[in-house]
């Protein structure tokens, strides 16, 4: 069984994003970029399934600019077998990403596609569910535990009330939540090895997908800033404040 893992190049999660002065977006010039953290978890899960013998090949895919090659090399250094870059300088929305992934899945016939639950830049939380719809296959979103057995996968999901378990017939789509695993670091020898692993470059047109955006960004603003308040000296003063707020 092959596993397809879509990975997105996003602003590093440690960087505080700044809105551009002209209100057109977030300033990404000279900002550290990394693999979307949920996608690292997805790569890790795919590798563990391969190591357990449940999968034979792990293919990383990214839709993005030439620089997304770095993100794919990171996936390869972690242990993915090969990679596909669908190169475009346009911003591609989740629906179009899902269409490209659908075309790749049609060609590669993976048993599982493991995505992040959410890209930390657009915070959309859509692509995996959309891909599942386009493929007509089941979805196990916000996965906390993934078990492949025969022709099905059991997914324990993180939901608002706690945890829920669903059983899906393969092929299936899984999206990762934070507690699924702790991603490994790529070792130096593996980073070197990754340089010679196969990486194909394609374009959205190769898959016949129109990436014209459906949502037009009218403007991007700074959120309202909160002012730091006061410091109280001790617990008694804090109790007084809580009383003034009417909650104590």
């Amino acid at each position, binding site marked *: 069984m092959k596993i397809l893992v879509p990975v997105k190049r996003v602003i590093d999660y440690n960087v*505080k*994003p700044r809105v551009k002065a002209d209100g057109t977006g*977030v300033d990404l010039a000279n900002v550290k970029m990394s693999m979307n953290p949920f996608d690292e978890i997805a790569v890790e899960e795919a590798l563990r399934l391969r190591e357990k013998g449940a999968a034979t090949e792990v293919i990383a895919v990214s839709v993005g600019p030439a620089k997304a090659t770095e993100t794919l090399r990171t996936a390869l250094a972690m242990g993915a077998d090969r990679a596909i870059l669908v190169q475009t300088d346009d911003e591609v929305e*989740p*629906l179009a990403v899902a269409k490209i992934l659908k075309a790749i899945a049609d060609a590669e016939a993976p048993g599982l596609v493991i995505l992040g639950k959410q890209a*930390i*830049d*657009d*915070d*959309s*939380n*859509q*692509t995996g*569910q*959309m*891909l*599942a*719809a386009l493929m007509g*296959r*089941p*979805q196990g*979103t916000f996965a906390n535990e993934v078990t492949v057995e025969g022709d099905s996968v*059991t997914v324990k999901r*993180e*939901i*608002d*009330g*706690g945890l*829920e*378990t*669903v059983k*899906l*017939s393969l092929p299936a789509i899984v999206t990762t*939540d*934070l*507690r699924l695993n702790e991603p490994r670091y790529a070792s130096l020898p593996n980073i070197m090895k990754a340089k010679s692993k196969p990486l194909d470059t394609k374009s959205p047109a190769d898959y016949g997908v129109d990436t014209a*955006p*459906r*949502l*037009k*960004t*009218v403007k*991007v*603003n*700074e*959120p309202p800033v*909160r002012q*730091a*308040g*006061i410091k*109280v000296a*001790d*617990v*008694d003063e*804090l*109790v007084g404040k*809580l009383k003034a*707020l009417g*909650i*104590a």
Partner: protein
Amino acid sequence: MKTLVLVEHDNSSVKDATLSTVTAASKLGEVHLLVAGKGCAGVADAAAKIAGVGKVHLADDAAYEHQLAENLAPLIVDLMGHHDAFLAPATTTGKNVAPRVAALLDVMQVSEIIGIEGDKTFVRPIYAGNAIATVESSDPKLVITVRGTAFDKAASEGGAGTVEAVSGAGDAGLSTFQGSELAKSERPELTSAKVIVSGGRALKDSETFKELIFPLADKLNAGVGASRAAVDAGYVPNDFQVGQTGKIVAPEVYIAVGISGAIQHLAGMKDSKTIIAINKDEDAPIFQVADIGLVGDLFKIVPELTGKL
């Protein structure tokens, strides 16, 4: 515009998240609801009483009992034949189902909106709330998830909707529900609590978290939240997590205990009316957003505070 709102429920009662979604939908036009579940006629009757609601579509079938997206999405797509917009609360249920509907309709979903500026123009946070985008949809139909804290709750009484049974294709045969482990708690639910006490990594372990945070929360009749670090370390279950990728809360008072204030945490709570922080590090980023701060050791402060309330 005719809107269809997914009612969030547990087959016995309507969940609060539905009410703010109804408010958002009513800004766009006529509000119809979908109650899909098993043995959920009572939910539909209750939903029909929500102020401003017209028709309530009731799909009562074992296939919808657990809100499996594979079964729900085709039903919703059918109903979208005569609706212009589908809105779901941005809960784990809504986030699971809505994008599946959007893709089947070939529509780009507008996720987690916090404002409506026109029939097709919406405001939503991106980059963990560090930027606020205004976007305009060019799709013929709309699929939207709604952040509950951004819209007032519609009144749960006073409406005079009519319930109409609908049937869908039922079980798509792709997925089955196996079980759930739902936390039972007497405390107020996080997303509707007036006061929240949240604990971070500094709480050491599950016992310490329970001994320090729970009694303080009980004194204040508060819900209990946590940072990701506290959840990852196993102090409390996943459904306690507040933040960019956890729950979004906006209580009257949010008390952060031993939480540093990473942007991912702030994303989930910075719309709280009053933020109180207890942290031993006076330079912790949480103090940049806190209205009231107390610098010191939580192991001393929290028991003293609980004792004095």
